[in-house]
């Protein structure tokens, strides 16, 4: 079993206006991006740096060809195989939202976990680059780098690849 050591790993993205820099360091990230730095949007005309959130292949496919889009996020972690292949070909990142896996309602939580596992398994098979992000709405919803690794393993990513699930800018 791999032992965890304290080291600063990749980046995280949250859905908050500002982030406590000290907290971000302590929980093991180089930086945590707030809403005003990288936005998750469904707006196809948005011109800033963003992650595109979509539910259909048409819109997601168009977004993947744009330069300002860092990567895509599929609504409710639904599996769209064609999009995964296009994501791999365009060298974009598939972001998986972890915040909906920790919701309080049990049935919803189990459904979300099942969907995320299925999506990740398919993405790994099609060799699409994956990044897990917390997208926390408050400090309590954030996860440390160690917890993110534990989540990656829980969702079916093997220990070898688990380190590469952090969003690494550039």
């Amino acid at each position: 079993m791999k032992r965890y050591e304290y080291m600063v790993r990749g980046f995280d993205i949250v859905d908050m206006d500002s982030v406590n820099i000290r907290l971000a360091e302590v929980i093991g990230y180089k930086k945590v991006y707030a809403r005003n730095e990288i936005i998750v949007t469904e707006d196809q005309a948005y011109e800033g740096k963003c992650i595109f959130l979509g539910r259909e292949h048409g819109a997601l496919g168009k977004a993947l060809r744009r330069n300002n889009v860092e990567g895509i996020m599929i609504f409710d972690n639904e599996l769209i195989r064609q999009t995964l292949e296009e994501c791999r070909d365009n060298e974009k990142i598939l972001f998986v939202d972890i915040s909906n896996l920790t919701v309080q309602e049990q049935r919803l939580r189990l459904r979300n976990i099942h969907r995320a596992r299925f999506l990740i398994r398919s993405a790994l098979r099609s060799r699409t680059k994956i990044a897990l992000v917390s997208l926390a709405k408050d400090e309590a919803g954030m996860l440390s780098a160690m917890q993110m690794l534990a989540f990656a393993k829980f969702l079916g990513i093997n220990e070898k690849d688990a380190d590469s699930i952090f969003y690494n800018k550039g």
Partner: protein
Amino acid sequence: MRKMLTVYSTTKDDALILRYKYRYILFMSSSELDFGIEERGLLNEIMRYIGEISYSKANPKIAAQYSRKLFVIKTERSYEDLIILALSFIKELHGRRIGFFSLKSSGTIKSLRVYSKKITA
């Protein structure tokens, strides 16, 4: 899975003395905790997520408390991942919103004490 028990020493009669090996994990909470009241609640929440069988095998205990936010959980070493995951799922305790962050894990409690001082400094 790693061996839960490790051979500690042998006696003259060749009877093995076995001991459990533990892992200590340093956690930080997003808001202050009153361990006198909330310790049992926290352990119950862990049991809710990992189940009674895994709970009895993992045997998690709060081993130390360095401040109202920093504390250490001691667990059987092959269940370390499970405990980290269980605390990631806990977002509510005694009706208030709270989050837990795992910071470091170690085989000895002493190194965590040194690390916790580094964080609070």
